[in-house]
């Protein structure tokens, strides 16, 4: 198995190099550079060129590229043009919000999806299964934007149960400690529930089919034949076998939530990485935007790899060639 993992990692290397080249060229195509704004209005005419020379912007592209890559290797993504601090600082702040959101979403997702998937599979063909399938179908079709807007309208504005925007109450943020923590959690309920309702659809459908498959397996017939009570058949024999592959997918689903948060973060005005990306593109803050693209791409690839490894660990029958 480790052979497979190592091979996958080796394939990653040329892909990452190609990706970094694409991102680098995209950045160099972008209009405007960082230095124009830093030149004092009264400075001599050659000042801008001198600054560019100093920053190495006049070097050949391959020198610029290798310098950029070697900086990234040391964790230095350059400075944000808008915020005038290191890119890593800017991203770090918003990353915490996105991580909180994706953890909450994943928790809600499995809280919703596991019971529904199990019930639908067990009552296969009954009305409750049909109802759950209907739910799956509706939430498979509804776009994240539409659901988020309706959630805000109904639960935040009309019913007033949850705050409509921001990631924390400013008063609570000053107080710090548990007050701040609970305020953050409270602000995250609605957005993460929205994400979970949509994201859970795939898990429900998968789990349902899984339960239906396992139900017909020989060892279940054996369990029934030796007189195991029906509820025990489900809780001990079906559940464990059906849940295994789902457990393997947790990593992948966290990553999916991570990358799909643009709309939810925008609509609920959470200061996450998605909104940071949008605002840095609008503000022509290319160092931040490029670092975010690289970050998202690498997270995506690594989490896919992790998901494959966990599935291999969980289910020894699967060996990816």
């Amino acid at each position, binding site marked *: 198995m480790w052979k497979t993992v190592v091979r996958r990692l080796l394939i990653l290397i040329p*892909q990452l190099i*190609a*990706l970094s080249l*694409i991102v680098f060229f*995209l950045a160099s*195509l*972008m*209009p405007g550079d960082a230095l124009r704004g830093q030149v004092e209005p009264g400075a001599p005419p050659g000042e801008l060129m001198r600054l560019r020379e100093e920053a190495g912007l006049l070097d050949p592209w391959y020198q610029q590229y290798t310098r950029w890559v070697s900086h990234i290797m040391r964790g230095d993504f350059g400075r944000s043009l808008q915020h005038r601090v290191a890119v890593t600082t800017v991203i770090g702040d918003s990353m915490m919000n996105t991580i909180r959101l994706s953890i909450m979403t994943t928790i809600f997702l499995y809280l919703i999806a596991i019971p529904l998937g199990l019930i639908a599979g067990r009552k296969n063909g009954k009305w409750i299964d049909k109802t759950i399938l209907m739910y799956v*179908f*509706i939430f*498979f*079709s*509804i*776009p*994240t*934007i*539409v659901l988020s*807007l*309706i959630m*805000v*309208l109904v639960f935040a*504005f009309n019913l007033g149960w949850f705050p*409509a*925007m921001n990631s924390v109450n400013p008063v609570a943020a000053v107080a710090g400690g548990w007050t701040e923590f609970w305020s953050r959690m409270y602000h995250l309920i609605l957005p993460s529930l929205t994400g979970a309702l949509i994201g859970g659809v795939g898990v429900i459908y998968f789990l349902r089919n899984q339960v239906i498959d396992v139900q017909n397996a020989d060892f279940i017939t054996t369990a029934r034949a030796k007189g195991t009570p029906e509820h025990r058949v489900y809780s001990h024999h079906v559940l464990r076998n059906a849940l295994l592959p789902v457990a393997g997918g947790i990593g992948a689903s966290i990553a999916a939530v991570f*990358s799909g948060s*643009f*709309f939810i973060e*925008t*609509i609920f005005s959470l200061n996450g990485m998605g909104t940071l*990306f*949008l605002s840095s*593109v*609008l503000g*022509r803050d290319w160092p931040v*935007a490029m670092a*975010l*693209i690289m970050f*998202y*791409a690498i997270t*995506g*690839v690594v989490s896919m790899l992790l998901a494959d490894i966990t599935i291999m660990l969980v289910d020894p029958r699967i060996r990816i060639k």
Partner: protein
Amino acid sequence: MNEKVNHASAFRLMWHEIRNDWFALIGLFLFITIVLVVYIFGYFVIDEAAAGRLNMFTMNQSPRAGFPLGTDDLGRCMLRQLILAARNSLNIAFTVTLGGATIGIFIGLLMGFYGGHVDNVMMRIIGLWGMIPFLMLIIVIRTLIAPQTWWGFSFMMIGLGGFLMMSGMIRVMTLQQGRLDYVSASKTMGTPNVVIMVREVLPNLVSIITSGLTLALAGNIGLETGLTFLGFGLPPGTPSLGQHLGYARDSVVLQNRQWQWLPAAILVFVLMLCINFVGQALNRAADARKRTV
């Protein structure tokens, strides 16, 4: 493989699956109705210039006689705007889907049929493209080239990889078909490769292509609305479903002027639901194990 030969044509199979599924039947009917209404009214009934004219006296009015869906912040009739918006969004969705599929089928057939270097290079590109977050890529490129019209936007989306999903799918299917006896038989008889690809392999992929098309259509409607909603799609002056949803980014509109965004939201949802119901039936038709015949 030979015992269970199914002689029904792909389109007959698809129609059979749709006819026996109430949801798919209603979905198909509703979808066609919406598309017809939107195109007939959008192109022949509504005067676009007149509908887009600003009217200071009728700004932000709730639904009433004369304005069945109220008016927007420029005093224009929301119903007319909604139809124009749906027209533009559907134009984009259809163009990207069909354009992407045409290029995708072409490339996929070549990759699957010839294999070798073409296939290898294309697979590398597809793998690399799969790594880049697609939404972010479009947003960045969108700041370089800012398409002003629906077709400019469509071409941008096709060019940025709207064809890759279809080409990957067709490649796998062509690889499978290429190993079957009828292809070898045809090759021995000296049929030119182009004829084998287009007249013999392609018809066998019809059902998988149609089910892929429905999936892509729903995805492209979502992509346009999403990008325009975020402000990286069509320019602000062009009506589109995403632009209508974007009104709701203003919390005053979201809360108090629901007639300005809710109809568009419902329309997007209904379109998606219809497409997915039909798509599910087509999927069954494409998969021999799930067919009801």
